[in-house]
């Protein structure tokens, strides 16, 4: 069972649709793991649904909006109401939202080495402000001490890691605030795969600060 969850702020903003795309994706990835948060979000979504339904609408649509839509539906067989071709996961233990985004097996995406035993890969989300990355940490490997310039959210996808504050397992949603320093270690017996969202690059504080330019933000 997941021990670390998004706080109500994230769940609320996710339900309301006011999180950025990358943050929405990482929250959604947690929801796929966590029935408890999923249930809460569904109730929050009902607030949205009810308010949307009850609002007094003063806008009008173009005259031909429905005709245009039906023409679109007719012109594209994929828009038929019959079930579309089934999606086949490339990595069936990953959250669907992530698997669909990367749309290929993990060993076929580009990984870059950040340090010994630590590789990363950018996840293409189209978000222009928040970057989403996957980190792969070798079993037992320690990540050099670093600090975050902005809040960083980490979701454990495989294995587990620990830092001074706790042990984080699959499905855990860990938030580190800007300015916090930490040095996570992957558990001895298994490699750790994480998804992380951050608005600005992390900054290494020790010798590895030479790597900082590599991490400059470049949302994909």
């Amino acid at each position, binding site marked *: 069972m997941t021990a670390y*969850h998004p*706080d*109500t702020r994230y*769940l*609320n*903003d996710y339900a*309301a*649709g*006011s999180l*950025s*795309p990358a943050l929405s*994706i990482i929250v*959604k990835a947690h*929801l796929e793991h966590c*029935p408890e948060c*999923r*249930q*809460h979000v*569904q*109730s*929050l*979504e*009902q*607030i*949205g*649904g*009810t*308010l*949307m*339904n009850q*609002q*007094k*609408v003063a*806008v*009008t*649509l*173009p005259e031909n*909006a*429905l005709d*245009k*839509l039906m023409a*679109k*539906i007719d012109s594209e067989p*994929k*828009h*038929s*109401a*019959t*079930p*579309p071709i089934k*999606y086949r996961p490339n990595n069936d233990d990953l959250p*669907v*939202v992530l698997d*669909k*985004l990367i*749309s290929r097996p993990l060993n076929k995406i580009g990984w870059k080495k950040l340090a010994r035993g630590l590789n990363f890969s950018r996840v293409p*989300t*189209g*978000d*222009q402000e928040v970057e989403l990355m996957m980190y792969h940490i070798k079993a037992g490997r320690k990540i050099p001490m670093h600090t975050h310039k902005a809040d960083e959210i980490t979701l454990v996808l495989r294995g587990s890691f620990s830092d001074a504050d706790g042990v984080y397992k699959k499905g855990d949603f860990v938030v580190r605030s800007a300015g916090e320093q930490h040095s996570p270690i992957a558990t001895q017996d298994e490699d750790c795969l994480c998804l992380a969202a951050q608005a600005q690059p992390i900054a290494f504080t020790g010798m590895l600060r030479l790597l900082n330019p590599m991490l400059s933000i470049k949302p994909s």
Partner: protein
Amino acid sequence: MNNASQEQHFSHDYWVDKLAAIATNEDRQAFAELFDYFAPKIKAYMLTGKAGYISPEAADELVQESMIKVWRKAASYHPMKARVSTWIFTIARNCRIDSLRRSRPEISLDTDDIWVDMTSDETPLVSLQQQRSQRIVQEQLEQLPDEQRQVLYKVYMEGKSHSEIADDMDLPLGTVKSRVRLAMKKLALTVDR
């Protein structure tokens, strides 16, 4: 077109039947009704969103995208899991998030929708709790004092943060927070962690 008095006549079951007709018979008449009723609401939602600067044309485009999904996904709608308005809201919301994603790859068919609905896997117990919770939300939302309702409206329709709402309404931040907290408590949606 719709007006407030007309809206009263549409029960939840009414729309459930329409969705079922779309799913089983590709019923265009049913879809047209659903469109007339919900499309303007979706458009209004798109226009009030945080991306409040989107043009009416862009909002129309998002309405089209949302309603195409309603058509395509009608068969995946479960009346026991969510109300029709909630289901359509989540589709519209996901379209709005997707619109903020630059140059997302156009992958065809089922794979272009990354926001897969997980609710069909819930256990019967979770589903029951879910239904109970939804009933409370529905009932209590109507009973909320205007000031709490208005704050929720700004959170959910306008996508505003608590501090943005405080600015908007010229209220202290603490007041906004406590109104949200009170409203959530009435809706039985407080989480203690």
